């Protein structure tokens, strides 16, 4: 970034194609960062405006007004009120949707009053004809006193004109308010407000008062004066209402002269689609079918790349092992880091596919219909129509799912959604379920066509959703959380999804998983590797002990190596931990070896399978499920002489994994999103308690 770059802030209502325009302007030159102090993603990109001029474009969260009602929206106001030369935008690019121009101009009028150079891009003009809309562009420019460009971001029409307009607007650097709120509402009141500081426009000062959002550059004296305006809150509220009405009056006046809709020419595709998609019966039937298709595809499409990744990482580890000099660092690499990274990458296919579907549903406008259909039902359980998206996302990974709760403006509804999301069966539970089902459920067909193993897996998914709903209901009835809730959702027009937008969305969500969960999974893998490969004196003497005894037992070389590995693990730090917790987990049917797997899988649930593979000393180059399965199947419980992984133990384990929050990354994200230790700790211990009791009952009743 050079000093000459123009800083452009991209602002617009949701569903105006703002993201499309951002993608058009920046292409692949974009990155996601963070706003200081908050967890909202900051999307930035560079755009080449002309041969000599670049722009840094910041894509601000979509909002209907600069008066914020959510964390995401408050970023918009914060950015606009900045007076820092380095960070405050030089030019604001407002995107509006041609069909909802009136509402979009409300935001535009607010921004214009901040007296920052502004360009207005009216998007989706390719739809104008079909909707019977015509615009008098030159008159609109004059009335709005700004650069107005008609564009179609999806068809990349008007992009060059926008670039030119940004440069012109930056050079002219003229900015004048559009609505001048002062003389219309209460001239004396606003005159006094204006006198507080000459460094800010009247509207900026008004926003500081109404939103209590003071930029760092404001002096203490000025701030005190502004605070005195806040005392009469009913007056503030009244004036805010009046301001909005006044803005609409002005906008109506302008649009009357410049914007004509001939309804007879409009086609009502939206109305016809809404009749089906929001129908009180067909609406739900269609939604169920769509869910079915999504889950089917996740399993069918993801299995091939997942196997491929699994195999590749095993090969990389083998290659490193046989080509690097023997030592601790090589061990760390081949047994800690490489499998750790593999354990993260393996989930990418499922997560990417699920978010592909969610992105398509959101792009088409269908997701808002789901919110509409589900709101009343979800509200009974203390949640919100918008909670449906996190709960579906949770079947891939809880990390992006919990981040998706940010759109829920009621804190109580959002908190409940966050707390119950880990109940949904995420992709890390699948390998655990898969191996346990294979061990304890016979591979037979019931009624001639239903695969019993598949049925059990389906029941586990149902258990996940059902317990999420029940837990939400209990929380709804017991939680005493102050929250003022107001619910409004825009029902955008239906449109075909843009491949580019969907692609960027999937990449972004997958990245959130890789960098959110991935870091923690990797770090914990390394810690666990250390704990498993170090120990006290018995650990160090393992080799000697086995070799000394080998002579009597007539073991061959392979068997000796396996014995050493088992003995080492048993006496490693992690083995000691497993033995320490054994008395606690014995009532659930587990021994210390399973205990080790429970501890290690706190990094990520699927580590359970890998750990058992190590414990039952499966050779590294032979690490496929069938052999782990065989080893597990032949494991004997010395107390009873029966199989260790019998039906009660297997069921008890699956129930444990269904409930326990065996995921460090989820804990971390809940702490971040709820801004404190309280809720993640309550969640962690609550779920652990539930898992323990349920597994205890399962084991005791079945055995």
């Amino acid at each position, binding site marked *: 970034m050079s000093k000459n770059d123009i800083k452009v802030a991209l602002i617009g209502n949701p569903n105006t194609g703002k993201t499309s325009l951002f993608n058009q302007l920046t292409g692949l030159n974009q990155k996601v960062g963070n706003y200081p102090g908050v967890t909202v993603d900051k999307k930035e990109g560079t755009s080449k405006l002309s041969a000599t001029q670049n722009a840094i474009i910041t894509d601000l969260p979509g909002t209907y007004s600069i008066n914020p009602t959510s964390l995401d929206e408050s970023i918009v106001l914060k950015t606009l009120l900045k007076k820092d030369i380095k960070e405050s935008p030089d030019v604001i690019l407002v995107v509006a949707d041609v069909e909802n121009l009136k509402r979009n101009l409300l935001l535009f009028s607010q921004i214009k009053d901040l007296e920052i150079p502004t360009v207005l891009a009216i998007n989706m003009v390719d739809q104008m004809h079909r909707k019977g809309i015509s615009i008098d562009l030159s008159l609109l420019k004059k009335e709005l006193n700004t650069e107005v460009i008609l564009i179609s971001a999806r068809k990349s029409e008007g992009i060059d004109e926008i670039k030119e307009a940004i440069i012109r607007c930056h050079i002219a650097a003229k900015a004048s308010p559009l609505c001048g709120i002062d003389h219309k509402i209460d001239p004396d009141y606003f005159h006094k407000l204006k006198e507080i500081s000459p460094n800010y426009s009247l509207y900026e000062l008004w926003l500081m008062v109404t939103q209590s959002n003071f930029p760092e550059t404001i002096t203490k004296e000025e701030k005190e004066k502004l605070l005195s305006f806040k005392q009469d809150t009913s007056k503030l509220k009244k004036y805010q209402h009046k301001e909005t*009405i006044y803005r609409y009056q002005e906008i109506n006046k302008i649009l009357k002269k410049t914007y004509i809709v001939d309804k007879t020419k409009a086609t009502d595709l939206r109305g016809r689609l809404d009749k089906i998609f929001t129908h009180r019966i067909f609406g739900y039937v269609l939604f169920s079918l769509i869910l079915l298709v999504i889950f089917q595809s996740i399993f069918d499409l993801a299995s091939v790349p997942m196997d491929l990744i699994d195999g590749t990482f095993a090969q990389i580890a083998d290659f490193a092992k046989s080509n690097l000099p023997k030592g601790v660092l090589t061990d760390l690499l081949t047994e800690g880091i490489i499998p750790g990274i593999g354990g993260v990458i393996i989930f990418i296919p499922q997560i990417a596919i699920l978010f592909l579907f969610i992105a398509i549903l959101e792009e088409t406008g269908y997701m808002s219909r789901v919110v509409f259909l589900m709101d009343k039902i979800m509200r009974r359980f203390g949640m919100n129509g918008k909670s449906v998206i996190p709960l579906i996302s949770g079947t891939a990974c809880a990390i992006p799912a919990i981040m998706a709760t940010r759109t829920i403006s009621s804190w109580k509804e959002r908190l409940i959604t966050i707390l119950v999301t880990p109940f949904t069966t995420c992709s890390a539970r699948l390998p655990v379920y898969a191996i346990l089902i294979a061990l304890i459920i016979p591979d037979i067909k019931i009624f001639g066509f239903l695969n019993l193993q598949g049925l059990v897996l389906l029941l586990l998914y149902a258990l996940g959703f059902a317990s999420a709903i029940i837990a939400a209901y209990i929380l709804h009835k017991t939680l005493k959380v102050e929250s003022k809730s107001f619910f409004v959702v825009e029902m955008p027009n239906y449109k075909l999804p843009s491949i580019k937008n969907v692609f960027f969305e999937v990449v972004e969500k997958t990245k959130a998983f890789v960098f959110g969960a991935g870091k923690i999974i990797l770090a914990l893998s390394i810690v666990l590797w250390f704990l498993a490969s170090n120990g006290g004196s018995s650990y160090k003497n393992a080799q000697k002990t086995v070799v000394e005894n080998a002579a009597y037992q007539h073991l061959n070389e392979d068997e000796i190596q396996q014995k050493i590995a088992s003995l080492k693990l048993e006496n490693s730090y992690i083995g000691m931990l497993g033995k320490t917790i054994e008395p606690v987990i014995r009532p659930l049917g587990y021994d210390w070896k399973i205990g080790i797997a429970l501890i290690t899988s706190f990094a990520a649930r699927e580590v359970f399978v890998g750990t058992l593979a190590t414990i039952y000393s499966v050779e590294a180059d032979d690490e496929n499920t069938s052999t782990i399965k065989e080893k597990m199947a032949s494991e004997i419980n010395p107390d009873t002489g029966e199989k260790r992984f019998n039906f009660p133990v297997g069921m008890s384990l699956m129930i444990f994994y269904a409930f326990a929050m065996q995921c460090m990354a989820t804990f971390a994200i809940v702490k971040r999103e709820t801004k404190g230790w309280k809720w993640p700790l309550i969640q962690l211990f609550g779920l652990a308690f539930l898992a323990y009791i349920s597994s205890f009952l399962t084991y005791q009743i079945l055995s």
Partner: protein
Amino acid sequence: MSTIADLHKGEIGYISEESLDVIPLKLLEMGCIPGAEVILIQLAPLKDPLYICVNGSHLAIRKETADLIKILKSE
């Protein structure tokens, strides 16, 4: 006086002036202002939420909000 919640599917009303103080600011900003035309497009089961088109904006609001907003029905 009737409210948005009293509208039948497809019926049109006009938001009354006296509702100004009870309409949440966010809803005002989305176009739900006194004098604006409001059409009920669809009702979810149990008549909640309501899918309305107000001042050209297509919105879903809960019944508890719709109950507050008084309207004049067109004759």
